[in-house]
Each structure stands twice: as structure tokens, then as C-alpha cells.
């Protein structure tokens, strides 16, 4: 049973990791916890549901939802966050703004789609394979593969390309970055686009796995993914992956040994323990404290 539970946890962890990437991307450039990300994820899932309903075929539908959600990300940045940056406001103002945005998106979803849980078609449903006593479904395997690929693409993008270097420069010192000829607002919007796309991928994959979609789906998952991102060292993409897996497995273990009702705080207990030992998360860079 332990084996099965660990595997359950890993799949769940992949789901968290997928969402956590979005937090890390935006945090990695703005030092901002984007609380609207959970809602953007729910939006992505609903968009996919909507386009699937239009009978475009499942993959075109998902592609459409990726684009729409990416655009939503840009929209959030352009309408609400960029003006704040222009005013050089405190970071916390942006945080509150993202909470507001989260409210707007989530309640708009409820108002248009209703609060009830809706069925989502299964993706990659090629049945189950048994390895010894383990039952592994193809959906799970595909989810893992796609997450890993996404992660790899993003890591390469951030660390090996010029735009990635620009992203890191903007995070460090936006003023100096613009002096170097970097269009900071474009880079930030681009990051939000990536965040939106990753949220939509997460939305489609996770909905396809659980076959459920509802406006509030990003709430708890979002918080835990955020915890996972921080656990791994927020801003670090591999950190998001490891953090997500760790949270997933520990939840699964908690559910097994303590009972499912404790699982929601498991992510946070692990998080607190890790942070006390490593204040910047597992892969987080230490802040520069030279005086």
C-alpha cells in the first residue's frame, strides 16, 4: 500500500508542481506572490472546458485555452500591475491587487459557469498498467512526462536564452535593466504570459486527470502549490518541481498515517520545518547580504 500511496502522492505532486511553476515564474521576475495564479489556473481549466464544449477537438481546444489564459496573464499585468510599477509603489500593494484580481476572476467564473463541479473529458485515458501491486494509469504517466517537459523547456528558457537573462536582470534591478536596453514591461508581460500558459497547461492536465472543473478549484491547490514553490525555493523552477513532489508525497503519507483531514496542513508543516533549517527553501538562492 505504501508504494501505491507514494505513487498517488507523486502524481498529486506533479499537479502541484505544474501550478507552482507559475508562482515561481512571476516571483522570479517581480518578487511578487501572484495570488491570482490559482484563479488563473481555474480560468485555464474553464476555458479548456468551454472550447471542448465547442467541439473543436480536444487538443485544439486546449491550445486555444493556453492562448486565452496567457492573454489573461498579460491583461492582469497590463491593467493592474504595470500602473503600480510605474508609481513605484510598495510591493505589498501589488500583493493586495492580485488578491483583488483573484476575487474578480473567481467570482466571474462562478457567475458565468455556476459554482457546481462540472465534468471534464479524460485526457490520455489509455487505461491502467500494473507494475507488481502498483496500479499506474496512463493519465498519470502522461501528466508526469508533460510536466517534466514543460519544466525543462522553462529552465532552458530562463537560464540559456537571452530573454531568460533579461528576465533575471529585470528581477535584480529593473532600473538598470532598462538602462541596458531591456524593455522591462515587455519582459514582465511575457513572463505573465508564460505564467498564464503554464497555468492553463496545469488546468487542462489536472482537470483531465480528475475529470472535474469548478471555479474554486484553484483555491486550495493554489495555496499548496505556492507552499510548494516556496519550499523548493521560490523563483527556482527545479525547486518548484521538487517542492511540488515533496508536498504531494507528504500529503499522501499524511492521509495514510494520520487521516485525510490532516493533509491540508501537511504542505505547510513540511514547509515550516524546511524553512527553519533552510530559510531560502531547498534551492533558493541566499539573499545577498554584503554590507
Amino acid at each position, binding site marked *: 500500500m505504501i508504494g501505491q500511496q507514494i505513487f498517488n502522492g507523486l502524481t498529486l505532486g506533479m499537479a502541484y508542481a505544474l501550478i507552482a511553476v507559475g508562482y515561481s515564474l512571476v516571483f522570479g521576475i517581480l518578487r511578487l*506572490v501572484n495570488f491570482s495564479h490559482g484563479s488563473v489556473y481555474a480560468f485555464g481549466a474553464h476555458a479548456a472546458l468551454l472550447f471542448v464544449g465547442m467541439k473543436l477537438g480536444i487538443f485544439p481546444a486546449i491550445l486555444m485555452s493556453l492562448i486565452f489564459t496567457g492573454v489573461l496573464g498579460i491583461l492582469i499585468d497590463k491593467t*493592474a500591475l504595470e500602473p503600480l510599477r510605474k508609481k513605484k509603489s510598495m510591493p505589498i*500593494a501589488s500583493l493586495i491587487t492580485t488578491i*483583488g484580481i483573484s476575487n474578480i476572476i473567481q467570482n466571474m467564473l462562478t457567475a458565468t459557469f455556476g459554482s457546481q463541479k462540472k465534468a471534464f473529458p479524460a485526457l490520455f485515458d489509455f487505461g491502467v498498467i500494473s507494475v507488481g501491486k502498483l496500479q499506474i494509469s496512463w493519465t498519470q504517466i502522461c501528466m508526469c512526462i508533460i510536466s517534466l517537459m514543460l519544466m525543462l523547456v522553462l529552465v532552458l528558457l530562463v537560464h540559456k536564452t537571452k530573454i531568460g537573462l533579461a528576465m533575471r536582470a529585470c528581477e535584480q534591478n529593473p532600473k538598470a535593466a532598462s538602462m541596458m536596453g531591456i524593455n522591462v514591461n515587455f519582459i514582465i508581460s511575457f513572463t505573465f504570459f508564460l505564467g498564464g500558459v503554464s497555468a492553463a497547461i496545469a488546468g487542462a492536465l489536472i482537470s483531465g486527470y480528475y475529470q472535474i472543473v469548478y471555479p474554486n478549484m484553484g483555491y486550495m491547490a493554489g495555496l499548496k502549490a505556492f*507552499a510548494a514553490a516556496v519550499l523548493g525555493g521560490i523563483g527556482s523552477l527545479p525547486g518548484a518541481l521538487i517542492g511540488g513532489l515533496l508536498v504531494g508525497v507528504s500529503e499522501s503519507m499524511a492521509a495514510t498515517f494520520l487521516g485525510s*483531514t490532516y493533509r*491540508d496542513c501537511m504542505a*505547510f508543516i513540511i514547509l515550516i520545518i524546511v524553512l527553519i533549517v533552510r530559510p531560502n527553501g531547498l534551492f533558493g538562492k541566499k539573499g545577498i547580504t554584503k554590507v
Partner: protein
Amino acid sequence: MNDIKQKKNFNIILYLEQFIDRFKLPLAVSSAVLLLIFPHLLTNQYILTIVVKVGIYIILALGLNILTGYVGLVSLGHAGFVAIGAYTASLLATRLGLGFFLSMLCGMICAGIAGILLGLPTLRLSGTYLSIVTLGFGEIIKTIAMNWDSVTNGTLGVKNIPSPSIFGLKLTIANGGFYYLMLVMLLIVTLFCYVTYKSRTGRAFLAIKTDEMAGIMMGINVTYYKVLAFVLSACICASAGALYASLIGYIDPNTFTFDVSTMILSIVILGGMGTIRGMFIGSIILITFPELSRSLMDYRFVVYGLILVLMMRFRPQGLLGWKSQMPYKLSKSITRKLEQARSDKQENLSQ
């Protein structure tokens, strides 16, 4: 254009401050009278309930403001402290029949201890890392409240929490007593915050917020002040929690969700963090708005979110979050001493 507008703003703030400074006494007296007779002007219990709720949220915001507005530690889990205060007080009141004030005090002590337990290990954390730990704290407290059935009654919650009473007089919304109780507590907390800020404690808080390293180099014991801020903040929020529990008469783990934490934080930021005045306006707006907009139904919280976004968009420093433009206030004795020194010097020169 923009600059001219800002220039005007600046003058308005200075003018406003001078105005308030000059008419301190009449303003204070008239608002006190207004607040005191308020329940007699209005017999509508619903409105009175809302007003009390606004008051409770002001206390909560004042509590969080110590930590976030002054020390710069952003907490996303203050619902946890509220829960500790509310649960401790209500359990003591319902199970042991303890009086309101005693049980509130116990709630505050428990929250204070929780403040230490949370504050100490997280000293090394900063920024987002601390915020997420506080968030986790809030969730953990909620989970404990949900699962520790034998004590907290689990998801069934605590029912029939008695109203506070003084000398056998039950303070309820109906007889206005609850309102006055809220008023007194609010006054005490406000004064407490005021005197704390106007002392070396307040300065140490601000120093830690703006530059922790420089603060350390001034000999400030950062550990002590951070933990102190946690404790004060926790105690104040716990007292509000106890008050809240006896207002509603029923609590369960879902009373203390993440949304409560973000609500308190939003009040602090929207009002203007690091100010006392801001907490009042922030709470009034954010608590009354959802009530006023009931007719919007489904779109109520869409509009609520919109308000948050717009307010931040146009006043990111918070509605009343300006820095005082008045000269630094010196006490009379200092002015006298300085005058003295100056004239001495002049004498010396002329000699």
C-alpha cells in the same frame, strides 16, 4: 500636470494636518459624543451589528498593523491568532463558565504564546518566506481546530457562546451594551498602539522595517522586537477574536479561513499601513461594502475585487497612507532648552 496635482495634494495634506492639529480638542469631543449617542440614534440591530463588526475589524487591523505596518513582516495567517483567541475564550466560557473578560485574557495569553512560538523560529526568514510560514500557521491552526474534536468540538464548532456581561448586566447588541464594550476595547487598543509607536519601541520597529542590518548596528535587539511585535499583534487580534465569537455566538473552523487573514491585511494596506487612522477608514470601507452591495448578488465579490484593484491602482500607499508633512513635534521643555542654548551661545559670541 501630474506634478502640479501632487503639489496640491501635498498642500492639502499639510493643511489638513494643521487643521486637525489646531482643532484637536473640539474634534475629539464631538466625535466622542457622536460615538456615544450613536446607538440611541439608531435602533436598527442590523446596522449596529455591522458597526460592531467594523469596530472589531479595526482592532484586528491595528493588531496586524504592528507587525506589517511597523515591523514590515507581512502576515498572511492572522486568522490563526484570531482563532486562538476566539476558541480559547469561547471554550472557557462555555465549558468552564468563565466570565468574558477572564476568558478573553486567557485567549490573549494563549495567542501571545503562539506568537512567540511562531515568531522565534521564523526570525531568520524574510519577505515571502515569512509570509508563507504565517499562511501555513493559519492553515495549521484551522486544521487543529477541525481535528481536535475532544477540545474544539471539531467541525461542529462551539455553540451558544454567551454574551459578555458586566456586574450581571448582559451586554448585547439589542441593549447597545455590546457596542459600548467594542468602543471601550477599541479605545484601549488605539491608545496602546499610539503610545507604543511614540516611544523607542516604535522607532525600533520602524528601523527594523526599513533596514534590519542598520538597525542591528544601532544595537537594536531585532530578535526581541520581532517577537514582541508578534506577541502584541497576536494578543490584540486574539482579543478581537474573543469579542467576535461572543458577538456571533457560534464559531467553527471555517470562521477563520485564509480569507479572514487577507481581509485584515487588505484593511491594513488599503487604509495605509503604518498609520493608525488608516485602519479606521480601511475597515469601514471593506466591511461595509459587502453589506451595501448585497443587491449585486453574484457580482458582489467581483465588484469587491475590483474595488481592491482600483484603490491600489490609484492610491497604492493606502487611502490615508501619507507621511506626515508637519514638522517633528518637540516637547515644550526641549524647545525651551534649545532656546536657552542658542541664547547662551550668542552671549558667548557677543562677549
